[in-house]
């Protein structure tokens, strides 16, 4: 599989599979486009006709509330027709292979697949096997990437902080199993964040994580010292059984974000969380609902960012100009 699967022959973004390999300009272009879509959600009639007549399939092999809903709303606000497939109850459970499922849906003349799967590389695999007019957006593949989440996090950070090149960012929690963290690291590095720290016990940090351009910390006090942005990650309950951490209580004591620990960061630091939150495990309610939290704006921004990504990659498919004309009626 070629590295440039995401781009077409003229270098335009075709699929949105991972942040890795995207240029700073492309990421900023998405953020700027998203900014212009924020107003759409505030209008009386929340629609633009950019994807009118296009069919978007939400292909979720793994459960999701937030991501699937925001993708659906984003596609609908762009006037696309949206199909949600609950794959757990459909043909794959009858033994159909992944690629056959995709080929069948493709035969129904669909234009865009939004894919989530619990195995790393699924979106890449599908993208390598679809005909050229079909577009793929990765909505999370195993522990590999969740690029739209990283984009909306970057958008939220830019709204609150402005220039990325002066920020210190800490990512706290289960980095090892987190696709969100990996995509965030790539996005923040590309955007020029000078210092990215990851904070977790060694059991939750991948080997050689520093090769991705981050500074690993195991202590919250030193890790959060002077940071502008704290990005929390969800800790899954099954990690306890894998001997990765001793107990919820110990984890909360050491790594749970409380007001006390947040005080190590800058006074105006913001707190992000991709959801779903475990209150009292990785984050204290006082922080989650506090003034520094931007967790709910993240969700709102998610719609605009996903609209921007869909518009951008679909815009490259056919008659981009006429559609752009429609965008500004």
């Amino acid at each position, binding site marked *: *599989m070629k*590295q440039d699967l995401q781009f077409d022959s003229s270098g335009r973004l075709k699929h949105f599979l991972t942040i890795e390999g995207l240029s700073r300009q492309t990421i900023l272009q998405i953020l700027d486009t998203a900014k212009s879509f924020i107003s759409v959600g505030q209008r009386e009639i929340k629609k633009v006709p950019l994807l009118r007549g296009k069919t978007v399939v939400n292909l979720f092999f793994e459960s999701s509330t937030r991501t699937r809903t925001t993708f659906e709303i984003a596609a609908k606000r762009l006037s696309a027709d949206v199909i949600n497939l609950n794959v757990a109850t459909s043909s794959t459970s009858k033994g159909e292979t*992944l690629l056959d499922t995709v080929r069948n849906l493709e035969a129904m003349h669909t234009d865009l697949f939004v894919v989530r799967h619990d*195995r790393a590389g699924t979106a890449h695999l599908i993208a390598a096997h679809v005909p050229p007019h079909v577009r793929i957006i990765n909505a999370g593949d195993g522990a590999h990437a969740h690029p739209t989440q990283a984009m909306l996090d970057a958008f939220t950070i830019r709204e609150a902080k402005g220039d990325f090149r002066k920020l210190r960012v800490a990512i706290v929690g289960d980095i090892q199993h987190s696709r969100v963290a990996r995509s965030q690291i790539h996005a923040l590095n590309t955007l020029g964040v000078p210092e990215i720290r990851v904070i977790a016990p060694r059991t939750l940090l991948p080997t050689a994580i520093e090769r*991705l351009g981050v500074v690993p910390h195991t202590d919250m006090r030193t890790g959060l010292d002077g940071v502008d942005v704290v990005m929390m990650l969800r800790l899954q309950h099954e990690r306890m059984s894998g001997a990765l951490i001793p107990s919820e209580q110990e984890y909360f004591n050491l790594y749970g974000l409380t007001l006390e620990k947040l005080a190590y960061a800058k006074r105006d630091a913001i707190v992000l969380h991709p959801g779903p939150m475990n209150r009292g495990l990785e984050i204290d309610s006082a922080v989650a609902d506090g003034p520094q939290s931007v967790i709910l704006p993240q969700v709102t921004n998610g719609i605009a960012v996903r609209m921007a990504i869909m518009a951008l990659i679909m815009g490259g498919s056919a008659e981009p100009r006429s559609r752009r004309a429609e965008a500004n009626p």
Partner: protein
Amino acid sequence: MSLAIRGGFVCDPANRVNGKRGVYVDAEGFVVAVGRAPRGFKARRTIDATNKIVCPGLIDLRARLREPGQEHKATLESELRAAVSGGITTLCCPPDTMPVIDTPAMAQMIQSRAWRFGYAFIHPLGALTRDLKGQHLADMEALDDAGCVAFTNAMTPVTDTLVMRRAMEYAASFDLVVFLHSQDPWLSANGCCHEGEISARLGLPGIPEAAETVAVARDLALIDQTRVRAHFCGLSSARAVQMVGEAQRRGLPVSADVTAHHLHLTEHDIGYFDTQCQVRALQRRRAGDFGPGNAAAAGSAAGSREAPDNVRGDRRGNVESGGYPGTRLRPAGCRRYRGHMHFRPPAALAIAAREYVFARTQHAVSRHRVRGPGHPYPGGRAGRLRIRKIEATGRAQRTRLSSGAGAWLTATCSLY
């Protein structure tokens, strides 16, 4: 049909031949001379092997055949054909078939079926423990009589150290050879590539180097105590190769092999989830990690010299990324062929090789008086092969049928 293979580069480490020579084969299929043609030799057919390498048939120490039990994936016939077209003339079949090769009947059945197809020789590897469960010892001596050349628990680790010790002790009492796939099942659980930068970047579950070194260390300690003759299969880390090398220098009866994929592919070849680069064994950093020094340390049995023993890698695409199943042949040095599902040697020489091996195999069949389909191959006869002789490619076969005229057997054209 008498045959002359001229102009090729003959590579036969067992007989210390390494250079441009002619190879002359008599009508019976035996090599009668290497170098100059014997007096009065007349070839009915001449193969021009200029710019080709000519070497004895390769031995694959671990060809996981799918028959019996998984014929939907591959059959004995398809695997034998694939092997021969890649220059491999002898296959050792691990016991993880369905049912497991833990009875003499199974061992004989596989051999007799293979004889019927011809193409290449098959030597079964017997199960070390019954049903590979790691609890009770298999009937090793009976299996040895039925033609099993060595004993192994295949890819299923014997986790119970006491059972492993007993199995080694028992094998040692009859001077049987044990093949070991040393990998710690807990450290490697769910892993699908080397744990390091690439696994961190791609979010793939990794297998740490310690998964191998821990298990090799345990097995070496047991070998030290039991003095069983043992062979480590498919080592994937430089550290493990070093450990085996050190054990050899201490005088332990051990050898090892590495696979061609580990010499020619690294974790970096995975790129963005290239499932063609997923191999069942671990995928270590760099081919260079093995280094000439390390390979030499483990003696003749490790490093690139041994690679031909393992040139066949059939890999299912049961991948992290949910790819496609399929069997493919990936011979040594095939890196530049990546992207092709199947490796195809240049057609003309492949045909020559196949014909030649075919002729040779049929000759062997007649020697063993197999009376036709359905008649069992007399067990134990060809099976009394000792691992010491397998170590260097070619030597095993030469020894086995040394009653023949020439020193060589089944010289095939190995193709680059």
